[in-house]
């Protein structure tokens, strides 16, 4: 019976927390647009990708409830993202050093 109850306890995120995360996402959008306005040269790709990754992490963890799900979900996502990262980095072995 306790197992059944455990399955029923769904994590509910408060509206306040969602709004806080949303404000954070808007702030990061503001930062990335401002940084692009300043001439950072080749650093602009790096900074904008780092900010995009932070924003995605917020969406994944809070909006997509990854933080509150079973551990297996996080492992799955990590494997998928790592696979993509390997694809991209291996491609650059071909193009960056020919």
């Amino acid at each position, binding site marked *: 019976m306790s197992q*059944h109850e455990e*399955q029923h306890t*769904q994590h*509910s*995120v*408060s*509206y306040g927390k*969602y*709004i806080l*995360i*949303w404000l954070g*996402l*808007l702030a990061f*959008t503001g930062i*990335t*647009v401002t940084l*692009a306005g300043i*001439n*950072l*040269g080749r650093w*602009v*790709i790096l900074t*904008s*990708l780092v*900010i*995009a990754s932070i*924003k*995605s992490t917020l*969406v*994944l963890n*809070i*909006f*997509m*409830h990854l933080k509150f*799900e*079973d551990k*297996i*979900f996080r492992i*799955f*996502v990590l494997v*998928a*993202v790592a*696979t*993509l990262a390997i*694809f*991209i980095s291996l*491609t*650059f072995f071909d*193009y*960056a050093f020919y």
Partner: protein
Amino acid sequence: MTTATIESAHTHRDDVGSKIGMWLFLFTELILFGGLFIVYAVYRFKFPEQFQLAAKELDTLVGTVNTIILLTSSLTVAMSITAIQQGKKHLSMMLVGMTIIFAIVFLVNKYFEWSHKISVGIYPQSPELLNKPPGEILYFGLYYVMTGLHALHVIIGMVILLFNLVFIAKGKINQQSYVKLEAGGLYWHLVDIIWIFLFPLFYLIN
């Protein structure tokens, strides 16, 4: 509620399994867009100046507004799940409805953006575009394919949310069973995440 109904609910439902299924599907989407991101990365690496020049044609303001719209639509769909968990059916329906309206506004912006590009002669295979250097042709090719595929996902997401809206109205999604809404929300957030990367890569190149 009797124990019999609770047990039958358990034999027919596996919410964790449903969500794992949805996540697995999202990974195939990640690989689909991932392939395009790889193509983008390689060509941007090969033609950095031409990409920079081509990106000047895009309006950063339109991109920023659309980013804000999508982030807000993610907020409303996330809140709709909290609302249904609390049994607030009408609030939940209102929030899903708002998400759909944000999606429509996003697409209307996209429509005006694309039609402006097309009116100045920048579209795949246009004589104007073919006269440009190869890097710019590739930039606009990728722009149309990637934002186009993304827009297609926005349309699909809208249809999924519309179904969710009907299910909530009919009580098929309710306080006890809302995994369908969660799956729809997950899809919508993925569309948001893809835009989070598309936006700086196409609009924010100095």
